[in-house]
């Protein structure tokens, strides 16, 4: 039996797993499903915590970085990023 990784990236409304999901991406290393940009209008979970409750393991989250002096009002990328994984066993 081989192991494959599934990755779920969630971007939340504020930097706590209780916060609502505002953006999401899924990458399925088992090859069972090909996810792509724009493939769903509804998030897979309402909050980050709901992903944990469904067995996703958090392995990375974004740090709080103080705004650079003089650039306090500059807006850019989505800030509150959380990466989760699930490992799946099977004959791939």
């Amino acid at each position, binding site marked *: 039996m081989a192991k494959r990784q599934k990755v779920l990236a969630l971007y939340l409304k504020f930097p706590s797993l209780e916060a609502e999901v505002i953006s999401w991406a899924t990458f399925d290393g088992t090859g069972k499903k090909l996810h792509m*940009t*724009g493939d769903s209008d509804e*998030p897979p979970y309402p909050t980050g915590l709901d992903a944990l409750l469904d067995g996703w393991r958090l392995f990375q989250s974004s740090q709080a970085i103080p705004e650079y002096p003089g650039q306090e009002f500059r807006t850019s990328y989505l800030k509150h990023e959380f990466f989760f994984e699930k490992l799946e066993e099977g004959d791939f």
Partner: protein
Amino acid sequence: MAKLLTTEQMAEFASSGCLFFEELIDKETNKEFLDDIGHTSADKVDSMETYNKNIKATSSIPRIKAGSPLKNAYPVNSPLEKILKNEVVAGAIQSLVGSNPIVDHQALHLTFPTKFFKGANKRQMSQGNHQDSTIDPRSTFDIQVFYFPTEVTKEMGGTRYHPGTHLRIVNEFAIAKYQNILGQKSIVCKPGTIGIFHNGLWHGAGVNFSDEIRYMFKVRLQPTEKQELLWDPEKKYKPLPNRALYWTDENKEETINDILMQSYPWQEADTNRLDKINVVKFWRLLTGHKKMDVDYWLTRIENKLY
């Protein structure tokens, strides 16, 4: 005679970064455009490459050197000249980038149905989210005029876009990891629809699951003059006075300020406030009222006594 945008439309553009004019171009001009590019049904097309090449070789769409004035860019009486001179299109262009804009670039985007990818053994994927060109921290802005000559149904995967993202400064495809963004929209429209995007608006092409080829013509225009009150040459616009915050009347009428202060579902709770501040700053530039404010966002932090 160009029909300039209203202040409400300008406020909508300042807030969302886009405007749409559904079914604006008449059937005859749509047909002229499609005949000119040699449009045919997808089952008569052999390959994506050959079809693209033929359009480039035979259509009247001219090669336009970057930086050329829009005024003389398209052949007289050609479909694209008629489209860009339509009173609503010309008025929107004049309102946003002035009377003498220059052409940055143009492109005819074709999105092919599934059978072409199967035939070519290619994976049919949507285009990732991106902001066009490159990092652009200017206050000056360009517009992209989109023209949809045919109907775009949901299954045709029309351009996906994210209202309110235009003032976030990012580096082109560096936002492609956001596969889905709450509140994302995809263009579904009738033939002859025109869309106008701020150059910073996040967007991407969808997958075409229909049996027909999807077309979208776009031209990016740059201003050659200050983009201040271009839609209001008599300078009638006056900012509204301050209103009460939080402890407010329930039955207040919707004003320009409500259009400017729209929130979008994808905005973070904290950064949403900066997005609003940036819309106010943008509106200051567009109106020339350098001290105007909406809901005290800038006045509060400009009250510096030390």
